[in-house]
C-alpha cells in the first residue's frame, strides 16, 4: 500500500504546511487593533462637549510627570474636567468594551453558539431586577461605602446566570447546551416579568430604573474604573487562559471528554469568569447591547474562528468600539447625552443582520 510505504520515512521537523495550518495571532491585526484603540482613546480625550485644545490636553497629560510638572500652565478648570471626567470615562469605556466583547466570545465558545453572550443566560435581566429592587425598596443606601444599586445589579446578574446553570444542568445531559440556553431564556423572561411588575407598581422609581438600564457611564468617574477593574482583569485573564480549551470544545462535549478535557468544567469556569466580569461592568455601565455579539463576529469574519485569535482581538476591538460609541454618545447631541446602548444597538442591529447574511450557510 502506498500509505504503508510512508511509514519508514524518517521523522523530521514540523513542516511548513503544518505551521501554516496552526492558528496564530496575526500580528498585523493585533497591531492594527492596538493602534485603533490608542487612536480611539486619543480621540475620546480630545473630543467632548467642552472644547479643550490639543495643547492643553498635552500639558494636562504630562503634568503628573515630575520633569514637566512645573511647565504646565493649563487652566485648572479644564485640567479638572480632563482628569476627573473625560479621561476616566474614556478608560471606563475601553474597560467595559473589552470586557463585554471578550465575555461574548467566551460564551460563544463555551456554548458553541454564535448568538450566545452573557445576556443569554439572563445576566442583563438579573442585573436589571437587582437594581430595580434596590431602587424601589432600598433607595440611597450604601454598603461599606458602595452604593447598593450597582451591588444589587451585580448580585442579580450573577444569581440569574447561576440559576440558569443550575436549572439547565438538571434538564440536560452531557451532550448539548440547548437545555442550558433554554433555561437562561426562561430565567430572563421570569426576571423581566418581576422587574416590570415592580417598576409598574413603584411608579415613582421608573425614571431611575430607566436611566440605570440605559447605563451610567455618564457619572462613573475613576471610582467606577477602580470598582470594575479587579473583576475585569481576573475575568479577562481567566478567559485568555482558556483560549486553547475553547478551541478544543468546538469538537463537541463527548469528543473533548475523550481527549481528557472535562467540557463541563471548562464551561463552568469560563461562564463564571465571563459572568462575574460582565456583572461588574453591567453594574456600572448598564446593559449595553450587541457589543458581545458583533465584535467577536467581526473578528471571525476578518481573521478566522480560532479562539486563540478571536479572544485577544475581540478584547482590542471591543474596547475600541465602545470608546468610539461613547464618544459619539456624548458629542452628537452635546451638551446633551445620548444613551450609549442606543448607539451600540443602532450600529449593532444592522451590522448583525449583515453578519448573519454572510455567515448564514456556514456558522448558524
Amino acid at each position: 500500500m502506498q500509505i504503508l510505504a510512508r511509514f519508514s520515512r524518517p521523522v523530521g521537523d514540523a513542516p511548513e504546511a503544518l505551521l501554516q495550518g496552526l492558528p496564530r495571532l496575526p500580528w498585523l491585526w493585533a497591531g492594527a487593533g492596538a493602534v485603533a484603540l490608542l487612536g480611539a482613546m486619543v480621540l475620546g480625550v480630545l473630543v467632548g462637549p467642552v472644547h479643550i485644545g490639543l495643547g492643553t490636553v498635552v500639558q494636562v497629560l504630562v503634568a503628573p510627570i515630575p520633569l514637566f510638572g512645573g511647565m504646565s500652565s493649563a487652566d485648572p478648570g479644564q485640567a479638572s474636567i480632563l482628569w476627573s471626567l473625560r479621561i476616566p470615562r474614556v478608560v471606563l469605556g475601553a474597560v467595559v468594551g473589552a470586557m463585554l466583547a471578550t465575555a461574548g466570545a467566551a460564551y460563544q465558545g463555551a456554548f458553541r453558539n454564535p448568538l450566545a453572550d452573557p445576556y443569554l443566560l439572563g445576566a442583563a435581566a438579573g442585573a436589571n431586577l437587582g437594581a430595580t429592587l434596590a431602587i424601589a425598596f432600598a433607595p440611597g443606601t450604601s454598603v461599606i461605602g458602595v452604593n447598593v444599586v450597582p451591588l444589587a445589579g451585580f448580585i442579580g446578574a450573577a444569581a440569574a446566570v447561576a440559576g440558569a446553570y443550575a436549572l439547565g444542568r438538571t434538564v440536560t445531559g452531557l451532550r448539548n447546551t440547548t437545555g442550558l440556553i433554554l433555561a437562561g431564556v426562561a430565567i430572563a423572561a421570569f426576571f423581566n416579568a418581576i422587574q416590570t411588575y415592580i417598576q409598574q407598581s413603584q411608579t415613582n422609581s421608573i425614571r431611575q430604573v430607566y436611566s440605570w438600564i440605559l447605563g451610567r457611564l455618564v457619572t462613573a468617574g475613576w471610582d467606577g474604573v477602580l470598582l470594575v477593574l479587579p473583576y475585569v482583569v481576573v475575568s479577562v485573564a481567566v478567559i485568555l487562559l482558556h483560549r486553547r480549551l475553547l478551541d478544543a470544545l468546538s469538537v463537541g462535549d463527548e469528543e473533548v471528554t475523550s481527549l481528557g478535557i472535562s467540557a463541563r468544567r471548562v464551561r463552568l469556569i469560563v461562564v463564571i469568569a465571563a459572568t462575574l466580569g460582565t456583572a461588574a461592568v453591567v453594574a456600572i455601565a448598564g446593559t449595553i447591547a450587541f457589543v458581545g455579539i458583533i465584535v467577536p463576529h467581526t473578528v471571525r469574519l476578518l481573521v478566522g474562528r480560532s479562539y486563540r485569535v478571536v479572544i485577544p482581538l475581540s478584547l482590542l476591538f471591543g474596547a475600541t468600539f465602545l470608546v468610539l460609541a461613547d464618544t459619539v454618545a456624548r458629542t452628537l447631541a452635546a451638551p446633551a447625552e445620548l444613551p450609549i446602548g442606543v448607539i451600540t444597538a443602532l450600529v449593532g442591529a444592522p451590522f448583525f443582520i449583515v453578519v448573519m447574511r454572510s455567515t448564514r450557510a456556514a456558522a448558524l
Partner: protein
Amino acid sequence: MNDVVLRGVEIAYESEVVVSGLDLSVSSGEWLALIGPNGAGKTSILRAIARLVAYSGEIRIGTQAVADMSGRELARRVAMVMQEPHMPEGMSVSQYVLLGRSPHLAYFGKEGRGDQRVVADILERLALGRLAARRLDHLSGGERQRAAIARALAQQAPVLLVDEPTSSLDVGRQQEVLELIDGLRAEQGLTVIAAMHDLTLAGQYAHRLALLVAGKLVAVGSPAEVLTEPAIADHYGAQVRVLQLNGAGRAVIPIRGHAAAAVENQLP
C-alpha cells in the same frame, strides 16, 4: 501491559439495559472486532471503555481500572475514533490533529515544538501532510476519516477504539483506512478494538471477533469460529456463504434467501 479486560460489565441508559454480563479480554497488539446486528451494544461497549457512558462491573487497562484514572490519564491510554466525528467548521487539519495532544498538556498548557513534531509525523504517515493547512470542511470523506484517525493517533495511546471505521467510504478508501490501522497496530503494538459492520472486512483484519446480540456476548473467537453460516443465519437472520480467504481470514457473502428464491421459482 496494555491489554483491555472487561468483567461483568453492564451498561444501561436510564434503566434500559443495553449490555449485560459482559466478560471480554483483548491482549496487547491484538485486533478485536465487535460484531453483531444493529442495536447489539457494540458502540456502547467502546463508549464504556472510553468512560463516555456510565457502566457497572469492571474495565481495566493493564492493571489499572478505568474508573480510577483521571480524564487525562485515561486519554493517554485510550484513544477513540467516533463513527461520525464532529469536524468544526473552519478548523485546519493540523489544528484538529493537534487537539489529540490535549491529554499530554496541563490544563492551561500550550502545545510545544515536541507536540508539533508528533503531529507532523502523523500527518506525514497518513498522507495528510500536504492537507495540513486545509479546512476540515473542505476534505473528502476518506480524508476526513484519516484526519479523525490522525487525531486519535496524536494521543499516542496504546489502546485504539474505532467505531465503524469504514462506514460511508468507498471500497478503496475502506481498504486504505483498515490497512493503515493494521499497519500502526503491527508497528506500535496498539491494542485495537473496532465495532465493525462489514463482516468480510472484520473477518480479514481482526484476529478475533466478539459477536454480540441484544447486549449479550454469544460467541468470541477466531473468524473461523465465529463466522459460521448457521450463526449468521441465527443472529442476523441473513442467508450467507462464508468463504475461506488467506488461511484464517473469512469472507461473508450474502446470497438471496429461500423466500426470494421460492417466489422466483413460481414465475413462468
